[in-house]
């Protein structure tokens, strides 16, 4: 062969070799190698804040215990009993300081309500208030809790969802709780991992959405069959039913699920509600495991229509683990962040951040575009809860994502065993008996949670290794709250079968902020569903008041906005669920603004928080 003929062949070989090496290096250079926590000083210098674990200092000594299940499924118990650690924030006694509620998930274990003592310490008062001993044998075990003032008496009540009997506790003026489940119309048994308060018909009364995960036919502690698992890894419809419970205003809830068209039996792990089509009624996003997510558009409080596929968020079946809302570009547009599962070489699903398209004029339903990859917030791990919040008060919403499934024996993995059944036919996968014995193996364990800092240009920087000590719990539920009333967002993470992480935000960059607390009068008292748009320095950020969001979690009721170095907020526009609108010009900054819904003039009160 002469040289002329050899050259193309040599070039082909070089390109081939280059592609082989390049593809191999692509995974090497971006491998997850936690480098360990940097010094607090470095973090403060570089990012202006540091998340300091303060469990000991605050006196929070709670430890979650996972459920114990029927012996028939003992061989995969870690797989099934992998949820139940949840956290929700409430100011149950209306003293102006946020309290923390943790759920526990073992028969006989106690839930905990940590009362904020206003001095940096917390005290568990759950037992004396009657909401600790709620995991009694035969009633199921707690999976999560949401707080909402269902009777508009000014105090947030507690709805507890379980793998078992859902329960409602009425808050008696912050002095104690009374179990009012009997006769309230709540279902007898639901294996639920999600619930939210919402006022779907805008009648001023908070209604409930409750999403089943395992079918409600099963008591997972006393099984008569092992055919309880999903019938498919991607197309399962044999999960728990959903419940839309309308608040009738007399302490009773009416099951209107079928009437409103929520007939899904997918495996729901999370739900959140906000108005996405601008008609003033809250729509419903449901994150489903083993299938596609669902978006239910609210037809003016009369019916829900599922439009996930048309909207562009329900096309690809992934493991939908949680849902939270944020406005990452300060365009005044609320986006949907949905966590999933990514395990290198095995399952690459990527988390989603769906933002509504700009021009919706020709669409019957809102259409969304996925910006997660572009923003760099797609690849987290085996993710559960996530929350947006401005951690450094620079005016951009940052993101915290909880990761890690089962951290058992180090150096082991159940993924291979898992893949055997998940790749098989439905008759095999749905029977727990066919699932290989876990034998103490880990699965996506020892993962670090992700902290992504919003750069203000649509992209995020991964600062997980730098702004807090290295930790690898199996994290589930995340909530953000200004626990110390100092204008800084703290983070509370509930970890499965372990202690929670309570992070105090040491923020020392001089950025400004404003917090807003809404009180409905025509609308529901919690103003759940209200949309707040803050405009400052040419920027516009939207946040909504929710009745639970993330994975089995609820943030503080107040909305927290950072505004960076700006010393002025131009306007605050509040769209109440009742349809009323309140506009506040030039509010004071670095303060808590309490706004009460009124018919006529604005009624607001500015509160100087503790510094």
């Amino acid at each position, binding site marked *: 062969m002469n040289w002329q003929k050899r050259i193309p062949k040599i070039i082909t070989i070089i390109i*081939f070799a280059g592609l*082989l090496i390049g593809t191999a290096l692509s*995974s090497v250079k971006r491998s997850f190698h936690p480098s360990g926590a940097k010094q607090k000083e470095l973090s403060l210098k570089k990012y202006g804040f540091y998340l300091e674990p303060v469990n000991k200092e605050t006196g929070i000594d709670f430890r979650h215990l996972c459920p114990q299940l029927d012996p028939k499924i003992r061989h995969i118990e870690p797989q099934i009993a992998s949820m139940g650690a949840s956290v929700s924030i409430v100011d149950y006694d209306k003293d102006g300081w946020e309290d923390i509620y943790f759920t526990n998930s073992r028969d006989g274990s106690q839930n905990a309500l940590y009362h904020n003592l206003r001095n940096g310490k917390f005290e568990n008062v759950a037992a004396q208030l009657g909401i600790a001993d709620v995991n009694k044998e035969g009633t199921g075990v707690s999976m999560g809790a949401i707080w909402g003032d269902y009777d508009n008496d000014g105090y947030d009540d507690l709805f507890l969802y379980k793998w078992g009997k859902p329960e409602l506790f009425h808050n008696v003026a912050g002095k104690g709780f009374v179990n009012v489940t009997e006769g309230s119309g709540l279902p007898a048994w639901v294996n639920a991992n999600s619930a939210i308060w919402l006022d779907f018909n805008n009648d001023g009364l908070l209604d409930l959405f409750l999403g089943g995960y395992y079918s409600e036919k099963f008591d997972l502690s006393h099984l008569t069959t092992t055919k309880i698992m999903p019938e498919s890894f991607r*197309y399962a419809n044999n999960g728990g039913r959903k419940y839309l419970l309308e608040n009738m205003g007399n302490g009773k809830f009416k099951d209107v699920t079928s009437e409103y068209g929520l007939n899904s039996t997918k495996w729901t792990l999370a739900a959140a509600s906000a108005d996405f089509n601008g008609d003033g009624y809250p729509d419903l996003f449901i994150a489903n495991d083993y299938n596609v997510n669902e978006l239910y558009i609210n037809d003016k409080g009369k019916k829900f229509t599922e439009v996930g596929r048309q909207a562009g968020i329900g096309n690809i079946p992934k493991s939908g683990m949680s849902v939270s809302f944020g406005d990452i570009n300060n365009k005044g547009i609320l986006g949907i962040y949905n966590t999933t599962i990514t395990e*290198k070489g095995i399952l690459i699903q990527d988390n989603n951040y769906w933002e509504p398209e700009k021009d919706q004029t020709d669409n019957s339903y809102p259409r969304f575009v996925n910006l997660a*990859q572009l923003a760099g917030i797609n690849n987290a791990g085996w993710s559960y809860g996530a929350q947006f919040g401005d951690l450094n008060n620079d005016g951009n919403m940052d993101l915290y994502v909880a990761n890690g499934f089962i951290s058992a024996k180090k150096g082991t993995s159940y993924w291979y065993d898992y*893949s055997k059944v998940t790749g098989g036919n439905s008759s095999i996968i749905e029977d727990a008996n066919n699932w290989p014995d876990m034998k103490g193996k880990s699965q996506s364990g020892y993962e670090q949670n992700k902290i992504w800092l919003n750069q203000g240009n649509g992209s995020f920087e991964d600062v997980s290794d730098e702004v807090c000590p290295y930790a690898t719990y199996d994290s589930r539920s995340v909530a953000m709250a200004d626990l110390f009333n100092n204008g800084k967002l703290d983070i509370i993470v509930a970890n499965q079968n372990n202690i929670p992480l309570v992070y105090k935000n040491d923020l020392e960059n001089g950025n400004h902020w404003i917090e807003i607390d809404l009180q409905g009068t025509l609308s529901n008292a919690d103003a759940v569903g209200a949309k707040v748009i803050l405009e400052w320095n040419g920027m516009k950020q939207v946040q909504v008041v929710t009745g639970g969001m993330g994975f089995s979690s609820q943030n503080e009721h107040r909305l927290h906005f950072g505004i960076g170095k700006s010393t002025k907020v131009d306007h605050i526009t509040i769209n109440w669920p009742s349809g009323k609108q309140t506009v506040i010009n030039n509010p004071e900054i670095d303060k808590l603004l309490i706004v009460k819904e009124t018919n006529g003039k604005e009624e607001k009160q500015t509160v100087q928080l503790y510094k």
Partner: protein
Amino acid sequence: MPWIVDRPKGYFQYVPPAFITLLLLIGQLSFGVLDSYINVVVSVCAAMLTEMILSRVLLGKWKSLSSAYISGISVGILIRSTMIWPYIITAVLSIMSKYVLRYKGKHLWNPSNFGVSWMLFMAPLDVAGLSIQWGSNFLGLAVIWVLGLVIVYRAKRFHVTITYVISFIILAYIRSLIVGDTFLAEVSPLTGPMYQLFIFFMMTDPPTSVSTRKGRIIVAILIALVEFVLRLNSFIYAPFYALFLVGPLAKFIDLKRNAKKENVMAFDSKQTYSLQT
């Protein structure tokens, strides 16, 4: 070659591409198996374009694009990535391997087996495999199996498929005894789409199969055995890796033995139609 030797030219040229397209359509229309059509379109285009360029530049002629089409579709179905580039690169690598990794004028690796195995093993942060089922009803599964078996029977490769399937089932039983998991759990992967593509397309690929019936049966058993060992060591993509290891070695030995009998072998056989994936 077995696929077309006793049939009019072109008779089988379009059957395998039609079958894999049908398989894709059944999977997509019944269960929405594809995350996105664009992935398959991109990998098919990349494979065909690479084939066109390389055949023209290296062989000085235009080759039929049927095999590149099959390779492209296989790549589009078999790998999973949230980005587009892995589909392009895997398809390009698959086709390029045909032109670069050769012995005595024949390529050694099944093209898409090479591309897919390489990416799964070497680029795990960007690529995962199709290790999930296509749905929960038996109808689609039955259609795929019946059609697949008819095609491999007519293509005279039924013995390869059936040898491998029987070997897999026997070894699955032995594995269940060793690891203590149920037989159903061990045999379960065989009911998934990854295996359907593997046994109907990759394993039966004529250009990378050995030349004798007996040899092909032995190779099928060897692939099952290597896969058995890999599975005992928790390799999820064991069948791909087993074929990646055994296939080229067997082909190499086969070519070497045949070379003693035939002194001249054409660099590229016009008559050979490849059911390669």
